[in-house]
């Protein structure tokens, strides 16, 4: 269903080979909403509380995601979260070591979103942005 919706809304290609996946209860998201979730500005999509997870610092997947979706380099992204943490304004999304861990977390946690490479997609995953 979500794949059909994605096609209908005319998203043309995966953001640098990175696909954002969500728990089954998550609806499709636009790029701005994904950016706001990963920078701490949004914790809710509609009535759903969102829990985002990141890939490990230094991984190529994370680097591609930050460039394509958040439009920041790693330094700038972690620097922003450092300032937010030291101001008591929240903490960055949890980091998981690999695609399998991200997929497991997202599929078992209501409201969760994460990102994987195109190559790690499996049938049944809810793609919320590509």
């Amino acid at each position, binding site marked *: 269903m979500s794949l059909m919706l994605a096609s209908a809304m005319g998203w043309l290609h995966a953001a640098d080979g990175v696909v954002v996946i969500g728990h089954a209860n998550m609806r499709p998201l636009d790029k701005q909403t994904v950016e706001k979730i990963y920078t701490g*500005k949004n914790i809710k999509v509609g009535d759903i*509380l*969102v*829990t985002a997870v990141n890939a490990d610092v230094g991984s190529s997947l994370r680097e591609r995601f930050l460039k394509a979706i958040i439009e920041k380099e790693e*330094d700038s992204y972690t620097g922003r979260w450092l300032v937010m943490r*030291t101001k008591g304004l*929240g*903490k960055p999304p*949890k980091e998981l070591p690999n695609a399998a861990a991200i997929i497991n977390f997202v599929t078992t946690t209501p*409201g969760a979103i994460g990102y994987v490479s195109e190559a790690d997609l499996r049938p049944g995953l809810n793609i919320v942005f590509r």
Partner: protein
Amino acid sequence: MNVGLARLRCSLCTLFTLVFVLAWCPIAWAADYSLLGFGTVGYAISDQKAPYLRYIDKQGTFKADSLIGLQAEVQINPQWGATVQVVGSAPRSRDENLEATIRWAFVSYRPSNEWLIRAGRIRPPVLMNTQNAEVGMTYDAARLPAEVYSLSPVYDIDGVAVTRSWSSDSAEVSLDGYIGRSKIRQRTPFQRDASQTFVPDKYFPEAIMFRGLVLSYGSSAFVVRAGAHYASLRPDKGRIFVEDPSPMDFPAPPPFGGTLFVPGAITKEVNVTALTLGGEMRRDAWRAYGELGRRMVSGTNMGPASTGAQVSLAYEYGNLMPYVTASRLASASSVQKYYKQLRATPVPIGAQGPPLFLPATYHGVFADAIYLYDQRSIMIGASYKFTANSKLKVELMRTKVGLASALVDGDVHHKSFNVLSMSYNFVF
């Protein structure tokens, strides 16, 4: 050290109690925990004997800028969280030894994307770097200019803060409101007459009620923040405030007679209004930064009514960020006038004898007790980022004191001095 150890024991007891409660709470088992450590190893030395900012003198010191901190965060779910921050540093209520205190301990609740509520020990966003002032990694200045950041002796309050945000694709506006209280010990200015007894406290205990509103606008290229803050100060621990000494005729023929300044009646509280304005612009590798803090004090000319400002220009050259900053802090003209009046008025000889037996330094003691500021500084420095977690900073500052400065512990007037500062800043 005994007082510091007692406070550390109290802080650790609170922390362990919190951890114990969480350990038995099922909701806590599902929470996400994280720990952030940060620190600065900073050395500063000046070419002046009289200490600046309590510790910086010809002997050099690690105490002025060094600290170590630990911040624990619990995210129970995307809406509920808690944060505790403990910092070990030079003490804020005395000069000797060190202390470790809980700077923050609050619960946060986000009912929606737009609202954030925090309750407990919090630090409102008074100035641009107030909330992250202890984390040297988060800014490039070797030391946040005292001309602006001495606006308040402490910024941590026990209370509530509410933030409302409006977010678009390219920018965010937020409005913060806060109310809370704090008990502090306000450091009194340097007394030239070490034997005087009229101003006995080096640190004067006060209970303060704070409230304020701060409006911020931020985009990738531009940040601006404006705030209005109100503080009601009452003396604590049995101390009293008295109205400013006023000039009275001491009727006697010269040189026995003249003008004698006599303290006024007891007063319950002093009110301070502070207006703050700050902004940062980024264009390519350039950063321009400015801040202003204005304090208006009602009911006394001996308080810290003043205006402080800084402007800074920096250039990002890879991992290197050189900068130049100019800053100024000046007491309100009424405070400066009152100071000069006290200094210029000799204590009548008749008052120095029976029955008053006032010392010849009597008027000078009150003049020294005024929170007088008249200084300007220029800083040239640079930060070098080794990694995302560590940064080295070096700064040379030249400060010129005019009439006097309550930030200098000495009889320093119309004089310049230099301060060299170096620090290694890290997070882990």
